[in-house]
């Protein structure tokens, strides 16, 4: 059997999701052996052109170059996977989208005229190309990556997490930081899969896995936190860290 051709690509981001692959110290060599790797920028100098069976794309589209690169990858790939929060939901660099403009941000940081750059407003890749699956997370969870890969190798579509962090939090019997300490936990609206890492350490979830698809009641989360005495600015800053690039009606309530 010929090995599937795998490409691991990155656009703008911290390269943490590729790093998570390198961090699978125990499985790495096994995993790499299952594929014919055509591209893995952070891990290898070896690069090939030609079709790709499975493409993992990390990072968000933040420059014209990113966009060209992304479209090229889509052309070549049968299955394209948004890999990590940047690719899936835009991550921190999208947290001010719709709030401040790109020009303003450029001016803030560089103090120069904006037309200088080929920068674009940071967006998740689904804004530009068809995404077959998403593996969310900032960074992705190694366990989920392995599960997705084995599913794909087995010919099945990967399983996602359709439920929020609270479920895992409860399964671990972590004390609820909202109930116990009134902390502004985003667990109820954020996609599970991290085994509730933050509440497990006594911290409020900041939402690094992005919202539960079609299942997040942001309006209720906002209201709950307002009732607990947080200001709207505070809550919105919190909600936006990883969910800046959300549909317009993101406070419109759950379905």
């Amino acid at each position, binding site marked *: 059997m010929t090995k599937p051709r795998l490409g691991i690509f990155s656009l703008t981001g911290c390269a943490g999701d590729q790093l998570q692959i390198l961090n699978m110290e125990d499985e790495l060599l096994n995993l790499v052996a299952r594929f014919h790797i055509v591209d893995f920028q952070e891990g290898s100098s070896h690069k090939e052109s030609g079709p790709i069976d499975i493409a993992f794309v990390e990072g968000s589209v933040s420059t014209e170059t990113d966009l060209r690169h992304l479209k090229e990858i889509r052309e070549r790939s049968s299955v394209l996977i948004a890999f990590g929060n940047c690719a899936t939901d835009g991550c921190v660099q999208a947290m001010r989208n719709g709030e401040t403009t790109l020009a303003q941000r450029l001016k803030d940081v560089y103090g120069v005229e904006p037309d200088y750059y080929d920068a674009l407003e940071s967006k998740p890749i689904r804004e530009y190309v068809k995404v077959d699956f998403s593996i969310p997370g900032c960074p992705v969870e190694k366990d989920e990556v392995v599960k997705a890969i084995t599913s794909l190798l*087995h*010919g*099945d*579509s990967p*399983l996602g997490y359709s439920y929020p962090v609270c479920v895992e939090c409860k399964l671990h019997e972590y004390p609820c930081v909202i109930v116990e300490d009134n902390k502004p936990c985003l667990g109820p609206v954020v996609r599970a899969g991290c085994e509730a890492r933050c509440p497990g350490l006594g911290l409020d979830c900041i939402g690094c896995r992005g919202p539960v698809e079609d299942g997040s009641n942001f309006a209720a989360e906002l209201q709950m936190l307002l009732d607990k005495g947080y200001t709207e600015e505070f809550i919105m800053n919190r909600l936006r860290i990883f969910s800046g690039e959300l549909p317009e009606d993101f406070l419109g309530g759950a379905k």
Partner: protein
Amino acid sequence: MSNKSTLKPVKARITDIRKMTEIENLVTIKFQNPEYAENFNYTPGQFVKLGVMGVGEAPISLCTAQSDNSELEFCIRNAGRVTNAIHSQKVGDVIWVRGPYGNGFPMDEFYGKDLLLVAGGLGIAPIRGVLQYATQNREKYGEIIVLYGIRSYDLMLFKDDVLHYFREGDAEGVKLYLSYEDQEDLVLNGLVSERDDRITNGLVTKLFAIMDEPADNTVAILGGPPIMYKFTVMELEKMGFTPEQVYMTLERRMKCGVGQCGQCIVGTGKSIKYVCKDGPVFTLWDAMNTKGMI
């Protein structure tokens, strides 16, 4: 030892795969252990959990009748992960089975009665089991009328059976009527040799107008999507069927199939039901008393 007791599946092997439509295959399986096959007692309307290790299990209706258990047939639509995995199996591959589960159609309560079978889409699968059972025990039942609604010829399941009853149904006392939604020439498709008044264009409910008036002691047996039930029930009520004379089989999400996992719950306070264990076959009376059932 029907092994109903746990979530432990038993091994069976695929002996035949026949493509029925673009997305549906008829899969025949044989238990590895003959003893298991011998004790595998079921009535039409019951279901099993079919599984592929590494992917999971799906509830699938038994669409055959009891006479011979050495081989079982399943009509499987490729609808998602598990069913896709079943579709990618080959003859000779292993398939894991649990069951049979649920309450089937009470075929012995129907003795001496006429049967009106109404099927839509994939709902034909359990209905086909009822039909097989009734024809195998032909003397126990009165007249058998089958109404089958499909979208188009391409999507028709059990084409051989349909053809058979069109040609020879009269001799066996089985009247089959067919409705199809899309305008299509069934003559050209070779199903019938000339225009046939047992076939109409439209939804399955249209067939009530052209079929023979059913006798008073008829039981109606329904298999199809919830929306079909709504409209069929309206017709049946018009014809004077009482709520206890109408039987239907329901689909819900099921993980265990034995009333543990809670995923197939329906109803309100008084009448919470688990479709897998209390059903999947219910009467219209059950449905009338259980909000959200249809």
